[in-house]
C-alpha cells in the first residue's frame, strides 16, 4: 500500500505547513470565460508563493461531458498508467480518454504524465452506496493502492490543474487560456516543511468539491480526531484535508447549508451569540455545543467551490487576508485587492469582510437555496 502521507509529508511533521496566495472569480450568470484573467491575477501575487505549488480549479469546464465523472490522473511512470487503466476498466465505463494537453514551459521541469478520463458508472450495482460514495471510494483506492498514480480531480463538468511551480507557470504549462469556465479558483503555494510534489499542490479536490486554502489550522489535532469518529482518516496530513472532510461531513452528510457551516468552522464568539435574538442565540449556541470540535481555529482563508457555488471564508478573527470585489455578475475573492483591480479596474465595490463572515456566490440560473441568515450572505446578484 502506498503511503501518501510519506510523499506529502516526508519528515512526518504533525501536519504540512504552508502559506499562500488565493484567488477566485465567478460569473453568477453562468457565462464562461477563459483562464487568462485569473492567471494574471494570481501572478500578481507571485511573492506570496515560493514556486513549490500552484493550481487552478475550473467549473463549467466540460460541457460535452456534463454527466460524466472527469478524472484527472497524474502518472509518475507508464506502468502506473497501465495499472490504473486496468482498474478503471473494472470499475467504470470509460466514455473518453485523452492525454491532457500541455506545452513545454521553461519553468516546469520533470512533469508527470497527465491523462484525463470521462467515466460512467454504467450498470454497476452500488448496493447501499450512493454514486458519489462509490466514486470517492474508487478515488481513495487508486490514490492509496496503485503505485505512482494519483487522481487529482474527480468531479463532473469541472477540473483541477495543478503542479509544482508558480501558478502562472502551471497555467502556461496546462494552456489554461484555451479553457473556459464560469467559476475559477487558483492557488500559489509557500510550503515550509515539504519539498512540494505535484499532488500536494492546491486546489484539493474530491468529486466536484475544491478547496484552496491559505493558513495553518491550530486546532488541526482535534479537528482530525473528531473527523476520525465519522470515518474520515487524514492520509495527507494537511490542514486543507481536514477542511475538505469537515465540509463533506457538514454539507453532504449532515445537509447543512454553507451559511450554517460558516457558523461552525468560524463560529461567533459567545459574547456575540449572547447578543443575538432568542432564536438565533439558541441555534448558534447549539451549533457550537455540538460541533465545537470542528471549529477551525488559527489563521485561514479558504475558497471552497462546487458546481454553482463559490464561498470565501476567513477564520473568526481574520488572521489571513481576504478581499471581495463585485462588478455586475462577477464576484472576485482574493488575498490582495490589487490582483482584483488588475483584471477588473472598474470594480463597483470592494471590501474586506469581517472575520468569520462567509461570502457566498451562487449561480443565478439554479434556484437558490432558502437563506435566512441575514447580513452574512453576499450574493453578486
Amino acid at each position, binding site marked *: 500500500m502506498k503511503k501518501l502521507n510519506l510523499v506529502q509529508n516526508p519528515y512526518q511533521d504533525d501536519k504540512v505547513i504552508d*502559506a499562500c496566495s488565493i484567488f477566485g472569480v465567478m460569473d453568477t450568470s453562468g457565462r464562461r470565460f477563459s483562464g487568462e484573467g485569473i492567471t494574471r491575477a494570481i501572478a500578481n501575487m507571485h511573492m506570496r508563493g515560493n514556486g513549490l505549488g500552484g493550481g487552478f480549479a475550473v467549473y463549467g469546464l466540460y460541457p460535452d461531458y456534463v454527466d460524466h465523472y472527469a478524472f484527472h490522473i497524474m502518472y509518475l511512470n507508464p506502468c502506473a498508467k497501465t495499472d490504473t487503466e486496468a482498474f478503471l476498466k473494472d470499475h467504470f465505463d470509460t466514455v473518453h480518454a485523452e492525454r491532457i494537453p500541455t506545452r513545454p514551459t521553461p519553468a516546469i521541469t520533470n512533469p508527470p504524465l497527465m491523462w484525463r478520463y470521462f467515466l460512467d458508472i454504467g450498470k454497476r450495482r452500488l448496493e447501499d452506496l450512493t454514486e458519489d460514495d462509490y466514486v470517492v471510494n474508487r478515488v481513495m483506492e487508486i490514490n492509496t493502492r496503485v503505485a505512482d498514480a494519483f487522481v487529482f480531480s474527480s468531479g463532473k463538468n469541472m477540473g483541477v490543474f495543478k503542479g509544482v511551480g508558480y501558478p502562472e507557470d502551471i497555467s502556461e504549462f496546462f494552456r489554461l487560456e484555451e479553457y473556459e469556465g464560469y467559476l475559477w479558483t487558483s492557488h500559489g503555494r509557500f510550503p515550509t516543511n515539504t519539498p512540494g510534489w505535484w499532488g500536494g499542490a492546491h486546489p484539493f479536490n474530491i468529486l466536484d468539491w475544491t478547496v484552496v486554502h491559505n493558513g495553518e489550522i491550530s486546532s488541526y489535532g482535534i479537528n482530525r480526531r473528531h473527523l476520525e469518529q465519522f470515518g474520515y482518516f487524514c492520509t495527507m496530513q494537511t490542514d486543507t484535508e481536514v477542511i475538505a472532510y469537515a465540509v463533506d461531513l457538514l454539507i453532504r452528510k449532515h445537509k447543512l447549508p454553507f451559511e450554517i457551516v460558516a457558523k461552525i468552522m468560524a463560529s461567533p464568539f459567545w459574547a456575540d451569540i449572547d447578543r443575538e435574538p432568542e432564536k438565533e442565540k439558541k441555534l448558534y449556541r447549539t451549533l457550537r*455545543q455540538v460541533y465545537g470540535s470542528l471549529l477551525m481555529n488559527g489563521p485561514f482563508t479558504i475558497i471552497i467551490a462546487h458546481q454553482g457555488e463559490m464561498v470565501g471564508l476567513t477564520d473568526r478573527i481574520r488572521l489571513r487576508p481576504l478581499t471581495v470585489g463585485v462588478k455586475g455578475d462577477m464576484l472576485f475573492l482574493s488575498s490582495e485587492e490589487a490582483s482584483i483591480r488588475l483584471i477588473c479596474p472598474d470594480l463597483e465595490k470592494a471590501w474586506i469582510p469581517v472575520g468569520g463572515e462567509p461570502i457566498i456566490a451562487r449561480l443565478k440560473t439554479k434556484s437558490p437555496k432558502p437563506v435566512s441568515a441575514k447580513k452574512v450572505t453576499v450574493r453578486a446578484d
Partner: protein
Amino acid sequence: MKTYLPARFLVERNAERCIRCKVCTNQCSFDVHSYDSEEDCIQSREENCVGCHRCVIFCPTRAITIRKNPLEYRENYNWRPEVIEDIIKQAETGGVLLTGMGDDKAQRIYWDHLVLNASQVTNPSIDPLREPMELTTFLGRKPDRVELSDDLSLKTEIAPQVKLEVPVMFAAMSYGAVSLHVQESLARAATEAGTLWNTGEGGLHPRLYKYGKNTIVQVASGRFGVHAEYLNAGAVVEIKIGQGAKPGIGGHLPGEKVSAEVSRTRMIPEGTDALSPAPQHDIYSIEDLSQLIYALKEATNYTKPISVKIAAVHNSAAIASGIVRAGADIVVLDGLRGATGAAPKVIRDNVGIPIEMALASVDARLRQEGIRNQASIVISGGIRSAGDVAKAIALGADAVNIGTAALIALGCTVCQQCHTGKCAWGICTSDLFLTKRINPDIGAERVYNLLRGWSVELKDIMGGLGVNAVESLRGNRHHLRGIGLTDTELNILGVQMAGS
C-alpha cells in the same frame, strides 16, 4: 506501652523574639505549644507537631521555626524512615493506618513529563489582552449532528447542558469532612467565577441552597441527605461510585464529627458514625447503574445532566464506555493522587492508576467507539496549576476538578491530618472553635482569586498556541509532547516525543 515513634519535626523558638503572647498555644490544635507560668516561657511537645505551620504564620514576632527532625537512620533504600515508622505505629495499635489528603508517593507525575506547544511564524500567537479568548465550556450529552428545518430553525433539541465560564470546578468535599464555612467559601467562589462546587456525600445545608445553580449534588453509597428537594436544588446530580484516594473502599465519618448541623444535613442521628458502604447497595452491575441514572433523571424531570464519578483503575476505558452507554451525561475520573478526608494509607498509596493515563485511554476509547460526544469527561486528582489544566484539556478532558488546590488557597498546607478532625487551619474539621478560622468572606475571595489567576494563565497558554477557544485545545494532543517517557507511555498518552 511506650511509643517508639520519634518526633517528625523540631520546634525552634527564638527566645529573644518570643513575647509570650500565647498565640501559638491558642492556634495549635495538636497541643504542641503550652505556656509555663512558673518559668514564664512557652514549652513545646514536638512529638505532636504535624508541620502545619499554623503557629509559624500567626506568631507576631516570627519567633518559631519548624524543621524536619534530622533523625538519621542508617541509609536503606528499602527500609525508609516512613516504612519503619508505619510499622512502629501498627505494632503499637494493631490497626489500619489512616491518613488524609492524596497519595504522597513518588509514582511518576505525567504532567511533569508533558510540554505544550506555541505558535512561531507560520501561525500567529494570539494576544489575550487584545483578542477575545474563550474558556466557556458546556458539560452534558451532545448529539453527533444538528438537524435544521428548511427555514434554518432547530429541529434538534439537545440534552440539558451546564455552562462553565472556566473549565475548573471544585471537587466533592462533604459537609462533615470539611466545615460549612469551607463549603460556603467554595460555593461563593464558584458562583462568582461561573463554575460549580460539589456537595460530596453529605447533603446540602439549608444555608447553601441559594447557591444551587452552581452546585453539583452528590448521591453516594450512604445516600446521606438525599431527598427530592436536594436533587432538584443543584445544576448537576452526581452518582459517586468511587474515589481516587480509596478506590473500592467506602467512607467513615466518625460520630464525633456528626454535630447537630451535620446530623440535620445528613439526616442521621447526632453523634452516630456515618458509614458509606464500599459499593452502592443497589448497584451491582452496569444495568443497575443505568437504572439509578434514569431514576435520577426522572426525579429531576430530565432537566439536569447526570454525572457518574469513578476512581481511575486498570480498565477505566471499558467502564467509562459502559457508563456512557448506561446514560450518564458526564463521566468523572478521579486518579491515583485524588485526595480524601480519611482513607486507609495502604489503599491511598497503592490502588488506582495515574489520572493522565486514565484520561488518555478513556478519551481515546470513547472516540474509537464514536460516543465521545455523548458525554463530557471531567478529571480530578492532583491538579496543581493552570499548566496541568491545559495539559488535561489537551489530552481530552472537558473540565477538571480541584480539591486540594482549592483548600490550599484557603490555608491548607497539606499536612495530611484531615482524618484527625483537628485541622489547625479550620478546614477539615467540625470543631466549632476551629471552623471559625475560615471566614467565608475572605475564603471565597482567596479561592476566586486562584480561579481567576488560572483562567488568565489558561488564556495566555491558549493564545500562545494560536487558538482562541477552549474547544480547539480540547483533545488536541498535537499540542503536547512528551519528555523522558517510554514508547509505551507515549503510545497510551497518544502524544509524540519532544523533537519528533
